[in-house]
């Protein structure tokens, strides 16, 4: 079940990717048609601006699913 934090995150993630289709937490986002260098830039900018999370490229590469990005954004 999605909470309001998760719903907000999915909305922001969809905006970053310019994705109109449904986003599921278990999705591997690099498989989306919308995934690109600009989407990547948008996502790390979103993580920085919305969640104050600065993530190194090497660490981002380890994130496979939408859930993993969410966890990176919301971990204390």
């Amino acid at each position, binding site marked *: 079940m999605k909470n309001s934090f998760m719903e907000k995150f999915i909305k922001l993630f969809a905006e970053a990717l*310019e994705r109109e289709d449904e986003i599921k937490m278990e999705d591997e986002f690099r498989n989306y048609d919308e995934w690109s*260098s*600009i989407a990547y*830039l*948008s996502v790390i900018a979103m993580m920085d601006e919305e969640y104050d999370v*600065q993530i*190194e490229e090497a660490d981002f590469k380890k994130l496979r699913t939408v859930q993993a990005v969410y966890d990176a954004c919301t971990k204390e």
Partner: protein
Amino acid sequence: MILLPKDFRICRYGLECRLVYEDDVDFILYLRTNKELTKHLHQTEDDRNLQIQWIRDYKKREAEGREYYFIFYYHGEAVGLNRMSSRSELYAVSGSWLCKPEIESWIPIAINFLFNDIVFEILNIQLVVCDVRKQNKKVNKYHKMIGDVKVHESDIDNFYYRTQDTFIPNRDKIIRLFNLNEK
């Protein structure tokens, strides 16, 4: 207009950049005839001889400082292109930003940053104009992210202005996010 030497070369953000030569014809054709990459660009005929002739004509414009077509390398492999045409000493149009598929995600951004660094820092251009197909959502988004100002739109295109004042603060923020100075 500032003239770049024929053997112009610059390294930054882990990339190497130089002006294109006739020998780059196959790489240029490979990118320019990729249907997915060029669906929002002017189409190029898949004709090697025509492309060679185009490069020869371009080299004349390059020698006059009217146009510069850059090729970018990462670890010795050609990864992208970006081109500018000057309209005056202070004003240029940018285009043909194309990158090889399947490269690391930060490279296309770094290519465009290095291109803009050359335009602003070395060529001393004050205003860069870009037109982008409205359907090209990703690239329109990118222009907004680097601070470009939309100044006009037609039925099919958005037109953006870029100056150092709008570009540099956004470039520096993205350099930090991508760690580009450490590449």
